[in-house]
């Protein structure tokens, strides 16, 4: 049993979870009071929108593309949530659905015109940001009550963020890794030519994956507003890089359809906790991004070491 756990393959799979456990242990050691219902709730609250954003980015990375507009897009959906969805729910819901369709359209555009996704999404990030500023020129707005009450839910025994994260990881894991259609979606990242030769439409795959990314981006924006109660046009800009880092930290790779939904959620939580860890160390929170980078480098270095030992054996 131990021997089976120590193969390079399983080590690689376990690495994200081990890193998270190590970070959590350090936080619990520094501040034992976080080990409570209330403490965990506070600690993991903001991890929920980051995890949703990371899962959105994962869909894009799975088909060998990269989304540099995700942060701006989530800011936009947050602005829509805090204004239209609050004031005129129908218009808000339609606008958010339109955002998802726009993302699916981007997937189609990138595939049909054979454009580099980095260029297209970098350009789109300014479009999303521009619309967000038009909708909400100054920070403000108000979260719809039902989102607010959902995000501040206090279930018995287990804090809400933990339930939300487990459900998110579980559902996406089953849909993408265990279901029959999920195989085709991932295969299109691994060897698109072979999937196309088997009679599947790569255009459809790309549209579905970008559409899913849009959907989870919308969910991330709504969750974020539920926590912060208001929005502004720059609220989630740093989510672009956080989401990419989260996917990679969770065992995903930039190419080849190699992804792990549970890993992505774990990676997002690890990055979200890095900030708290610093404040418990009484370090300036300005170091947060640096600390996230350091964690990323550390975990990736460990992965390289594991891969090297695998290549040798």
């Amino acid at each position, binding site marked *: 049993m131990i021997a089976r756990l120590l193969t390079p393959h399983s080590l690689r799979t376990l690495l994200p979870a081990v890193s998270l456990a190590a970070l959590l242990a350090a936080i619990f050691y520094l501040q034992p009071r976080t080990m409570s219902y209330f403490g965990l709730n506070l600690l993991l609250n903001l991890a929920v929108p980051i995890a949703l954003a990371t899962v959105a980015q994962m869909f894009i990375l799975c088909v060998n593309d990269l989304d540099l507009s995700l942060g701006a897009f989530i800011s936009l959906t947050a602005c829509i949530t805090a204004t239209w969805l609050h004031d005129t729910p129908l218009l808000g819901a339609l606008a958010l659905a339109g955002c998802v369709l726009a993302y699916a359209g981007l997937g189609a555009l990138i595939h049909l015109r054979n454009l580099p996704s980095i260029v297209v999404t970098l350009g789109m990030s300014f479009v999303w940001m521009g619309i967000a500023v038009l909708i909400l020129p100054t920070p403000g707005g108000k979260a719809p009550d039902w989102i607010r009450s959902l995000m501040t839910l206090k279930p018995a025994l287990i804090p809400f963020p933990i339930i939300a994260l487990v459900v998110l990881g579980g559902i996406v894991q089953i849909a993408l890794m265990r279901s029959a259609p999920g195989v085709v979606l991932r295969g299109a990242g*691994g060897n698109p030519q072979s999937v196309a030769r088997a009679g599947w439409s790569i255009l459809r795959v790309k549209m579905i994956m970008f559409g899913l990314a849009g959907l989870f981006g919308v969910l991330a924006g709504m969750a974020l507003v539920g926590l912060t109660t208001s929005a502004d046009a720059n609220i989630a800009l740093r989510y672009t890089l956080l989401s990419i880092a989260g996917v990679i930290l969770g065992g995903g790779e930039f190419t080849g359809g190699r992804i792990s939904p549970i890993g992505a959620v774990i990676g997002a939580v690890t990055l979200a906790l890095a900030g708290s860890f610093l404040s418990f160390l009484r370090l300036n929170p300005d170091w947060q991004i640096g600390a996230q980078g350091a964690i990323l480098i550390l975990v990736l270095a460990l992965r390289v070491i594991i891969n090297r030992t695998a290549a040798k054996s």
Partner: protein
Amino acid sequence: MTDRSAIVRLNGIGKSFGAVQALRDVTFHVAPGECVGLVGHNGAGKSTLMNILSGVLSPDTGELLFGDQDLAARYSVAAAKQNGLRCVYQELSLCPNLSVAENARITHPTIRGIGWRRKAATLITTWLDRIFPGHGIGPGDIVGELSIARRQMVEIARAFSATQTPVRLVILDEPTSSLDKASADQLLSFVGRFTETGGSVILISHMLGEILDSADRIVVMRDGGVVAEDATAAFDRARLVREMGSVLAEDAATPTAQARRQTDRVIVLPGENGIPLEVFKGEIVGLAGIGGQGQTDALLTLFAAANGTRNHAEITTEAAFVAGDRQTDGVFPGWSIRRNISIASIRQMVQHWLIDARKELGLAQDWQTRIGIRTEDLSNPILSLSGGNQQKVLFARALGSPAPVVLMDDPMRGVDIGTKQDVYAILKDEAAQGRSFVWYTTEMDELKHCDFVYVFRGGQVVSGLPRHQVTEANILRASFDAAAAA
């Protein structure tokens, strides 16, 4: 009789890519229960023919008949599958990030719903057991982590596995190239059993022994056309080799080159069990054989050894490299012609930490006149040149460098005949002045410019031919079957 019962019949199929006629007037059929061997040298049109059969390419002219129906106009990958046609491609077409069972599911859309994993696993395992007993592959194994031989086994088993539409014809393109002897034998005996039960196979292979042993009928292709077609019994190795390439009149022996192969050896690349690759000063050495049999790897090994990063080979001097794929490995697309020429010799032009622009321009102008690069201004971007002239720049870069050995990786791909003649003359000239060239080429005609030719097969040198023995027949014989070359 075969007319009625043929699974698929091609009539007068033609296909061209731009100016290149890949297939001309090909007529071909496969009957049920038949194994057809398809042989031919590089570029004979085998792959194009196969891609047309599998629906990846559509033919320009001709008929594609299933029964009495001509499907040429509305043929597709889906139509091919519907008619029970499967294909095992030479370059592997599995998804490396998926498991073996998941890859089976990709080609079987009907495997779905609850329990699909077990169904897919059972299907692929059943066929692996049937074709390669004792394969040692688990359905949950990730394909990217399997050895290349096992990947090939999965790909073959997947092609034969049937869910709803029965498999009637399987095209195997070089199926044994990455299999070991035992697995190759397992496959060929399975092909025998498959055809006995009425299935058909098209077997493409450069192992002529396999074709002669397994095929019922052999079709030989050359230059995009079928040049011979007969029952296997009517062929032997000699006839196959003869049909594949025209036997050219042998040039008069020039023993001078042979005599020179005694002193001033600049390169030795020891072969694992084959023949060592040796290059002498002032010599043009050709690397021949079917494409992708290790020639490029040998060049890269030599280049790495010259840079001191690897030491599998002994090489006493510096080396320059001329890349074949100029788009990806050759030109710096954002740079001027001048910079593209001088980059390999930059060390000679440095003065006080800076590049001496006059020296750089001098070098570029020198080579512009010597090799005939057609441009008004060497400061123009490299992409303003035609493909052939870009290739000349790459030659100028290598020849302009001080390296006494030049390694060339099929550098004449897509170069017009005029440029070729210019370059040949310069190569001869440079060789006479003591430079050595190692030249991998897929064109038979170019080998005639070489003093010595090594033929590669399966990653090894299988034959070394001095200039007077360099004939198409000798090279074909060595590339297709080592036994026949001995």
